[in-house]
């Protein structure tokens, strides 16, 4: 079987943040003629491409979920920081019930403080002034929100490509049905 260009990578130059574009199959007849494809092999190629998009989609969804849990956590941190800011010059300790572990809240006294510690990652926590902490958190919040937006755009782009591929598959399939039908009829009439 002659190996030919894949249906979707013909125009590999058109990409969206590294995601290849799936070309719409305008003219099935001429494509099938020029590419020397059988319907089966063409469908298989499309299906493989489809799987690749699904794989990318899966990865992006993981990223999206991570960001989606990160953003509220940052927001919570900012909320609490505003309380600490209000309290830092007071003489009274803050009484809290903190989440000790799943479903368990223990009581703690937090003396007025202008320092908090933030996990940076890599098992490292660094002490910050409240104001610096707030600035850092805001920066991270912005970055995470932006990143989430981008991931969402990429995901919808992938959905778009997947749809195109699905339409292509349907068209090749229908083309094949039509051809078979035609062959049957011509053999009947002969």
């Amino acid at each position, binding site marked *: *079987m002659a*190996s030919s260009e894949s249906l979707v990578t013909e125009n590999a130059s058109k990409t969206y943040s590294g995601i290849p574009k799936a070309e719409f199959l305008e003219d099935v007849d001429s494509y099938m003629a020029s590419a020397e494809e059988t319907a089966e*092999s063409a469908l*298989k190629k499309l299906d*493989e491409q489809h*799987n*690749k998009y699904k*794989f990318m989609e899966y990865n992006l969804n993981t990223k999206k979920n991570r960001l989606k849990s990160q953003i509220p956590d940052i927001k919570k941190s900012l909320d609490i920081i505003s309380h600490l800011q209000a309290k830092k010059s007071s003489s009274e300790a803050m009484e809290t019930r903190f989440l000790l572990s799943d479903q368990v809240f223990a009581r703690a006294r937090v003396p007025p403080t202008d*320092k908090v*510690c933030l996990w*940076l*990652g*890599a*098992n*490292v*926590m*660094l*002490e910050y002034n409240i104001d610096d902490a707030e600035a850092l958190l805001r920066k991270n919040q912005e970055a995470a929100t932006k990143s989430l937006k981008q991931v969402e755009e990429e995901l919808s782009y992938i959905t778009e490509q997947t749809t195109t591929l699905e339409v292509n598959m349907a068209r090749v399939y229908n083309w094949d049905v039509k051809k078979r039908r035609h062959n049957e009829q011509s053999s009947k009439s002969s």
Partner: protein
Amino acid sequence: MASKKQSQEQVIAGFQELRQQQRQIVGKVSDIEMDMKEHELVIETLKEVDENRRCFRLVGGVLVERTVKDVLPALVNNKEQMGKVVENLNKSLEQKGLEINKYRETHNLKIKGEESKEPEKQGHGQDTSKAGGVLVAKNS
């Protein structure tokens, strides 16, 4: 025939085992690389701040209170170690690839649906791993 069939299954199982190992190495490499990126970011952050600032490091469930100047070298060292591990893993990945190819040649294995195109592209070994039946042992 029963014995022949058995050995075919064994060949395929052996092949899948190898692929599984390959995937495991790939997974490990990408895990460590993510960790390295995280280290890189933290190192950059710590470089920017006062070296006497309070800084904690979590060592296996125990949090140790130190200063930036104590933690920073430890992190840099950690990252270097990880780099070495990745290097080694990449080497064994290469070897695993060779091993797989050799295995395929000696047992005359082909991946179904691969007849007409180049070998599997990297990073997309997924579909070949699904259940049995994807692999076809050629012995005619």
